[in-house]
């Protein structure tokens, strides 16, 4: 039987230079559910998210200690293979960043990196994931045109398709709808709800209503500390901590 928790974080500390961005975080992220990381800006939400796929390594002067177990493997182990870890996780960033190539090549980029060369197989993959993100009907006649020509909302869905095409098991979203118009945001949210049957989803959001709409599980961070975590209904209706209450009421932000 599969473990109930997909990502287990224990004693995670992250420093940027002398500043400590995350303080002794211990949390378990449930499998095939949507987990929302909430909290005011600068509280370490994105840092926590970026620790999961080790993109945090790219930041200058960063020090990380503790353990993050994904499917039982400690991804912070220096011997862990980074490209393998990242392949397991699709990332959706705040602003969509399509790669400087065609729509087709954007989706095929990941699969090609991981060794798929057969043209027919790539065609299938591209079509499948563009359909999965409801982009196929909009772009099927211009697969060879530049991805940057798409609207922002379409670009974000393309980024999702691109991320899914490497067959991840986890989807990470760093405020994935904050640059989008309401309609495109809704499209992304609907996708997430559909995708959680197959994937573990972790999103960072500063929109409380979005967290309420989507999340099954909520992690509340404040100034690098984990204040409270638990099922979404408990956090939103009966928060235990004063600080969580205040944040949800809107008195601190």
């Amino acid at each position: 039987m599969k473990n109930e928790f997909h990502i287990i974080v224990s004693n995670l500390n992250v420093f940027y230079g002398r500043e400590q961005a995350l303080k002794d975080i211990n949390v378990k992220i449930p499998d095939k559910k949507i987990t929302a990381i909430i909290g005011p800006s600068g509280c370490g939400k994105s840092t926590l998210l970026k620790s999961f796929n080790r993109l945090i390594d790219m930041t200058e002067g960063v020090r990380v200690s503790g353990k993050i177990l994904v499917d039982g493997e400690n991804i912070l182990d220096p011997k862990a293979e980074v490209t393998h870890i990242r392949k397991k996780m699709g990332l959706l960033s705040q602003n969509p960043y399509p790669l400087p190539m065609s729509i087709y090549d954007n989706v095929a980029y990941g699969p090609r990196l991981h060794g798929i060369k057969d043209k027919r197989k790539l065609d299938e993959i591209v079509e499948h994931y563009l359909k999965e993100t409801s982009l196929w009907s909009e772009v099927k006649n211009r697969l060879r045109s530049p991805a940057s020509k798409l609207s922002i909302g379409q670009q974000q869905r393309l980024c999702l398709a691109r991320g899914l095409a490497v067959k991840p098991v986890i989807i990470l979203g760093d405020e994935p709808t904050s640059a989008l118009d309401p309609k495109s945001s809704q499209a992304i949210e609907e996708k997430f709800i559909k995708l959680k049957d197959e994937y573990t989803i972790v999103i960072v959001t500063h929109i409380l209503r979005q967290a309420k709409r989507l999340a099954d599980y909520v992690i509340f961070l404040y100034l690098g500390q984990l204040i409270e975590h638990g099922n979404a209904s408990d956090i939103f209706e009966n928060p235990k901590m004063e600080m969580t209450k205040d944040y949800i009421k809107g008195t601190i932000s």
Partner: protein
Amino acid sequence: MDKRKIEENFFKTIMIASSLIILFTLIFILVSIIIRGLPAMNLEMITRTPEGGYYLGKEGGVLNAIAGSLYLGIGSTFLAIIVSLPVVLYFNVYAKKRSKLVSAVRFSLDILWGVPSIVYGAFGFIIMLFFGLKTSLLGGIVTVALMIIPIMTRAMDEVIRMIPSELLEASYALGATRFETAFKVVTRQALPGILTALLIAFGRGIGDAASVLFTTGFSDNIPHSLLQPAATLPLAIFFQLGTPYPEVQQRAYASAFILICIILVVSFVSRILTKKLSKYVVK
């Protein structure tokens, strides 16, 4: 009129005037070269090499110098890319942001950029002596490449630095290594800028006289191997202008016109290419 409006108009006039100076400089150079070179402009200039007594006003053309300059310009640009591209990719994809090596190399490049070309010529000559090489196309290509590497590298560096780190992260997040990201994403995104850098370097390389004086030498024949000396257009202009004969001096202006035409054609082609290649660039 109030003071701020006068100020506004005053500075606007200065700005437009300065911009016009640049435009008119080019037009003035072109017109004066064309007028002075016109009597010598004929097909013979670009289809024949100098015959005996050419520099006294007898028959021939500067095909030797055209060929030599093209070989030199293309060869040195190619050689320079081989060094410049890995350097900028190292700077911007591999190295840490505050790497001491990177800032030392960037600083060196800025100084090397300012080193006069005659110094490169002398330096190239010393290297050639060391390897027992005579004045030759090869010596010139290596010397000019050394001279244009700083220009090319810094020009590419400035473009690649502007690429947002999120774009690189998007590639890493899909499981790409730094190498894959550098060659599949960074070079594509920076392609128009890389092309511009090549063009600037090529223009500088093909137009320089001092660096090729001791290294490439001069010859009335089109070089058939890298080890033969070669004529170049800047030196052809210099030698022809130095004669006391008006008809040879006219040929110098015609040669200058040919050199400018080469640079214009290359700029034009690369502009069209840039437009085509920037199709996929993410803005």
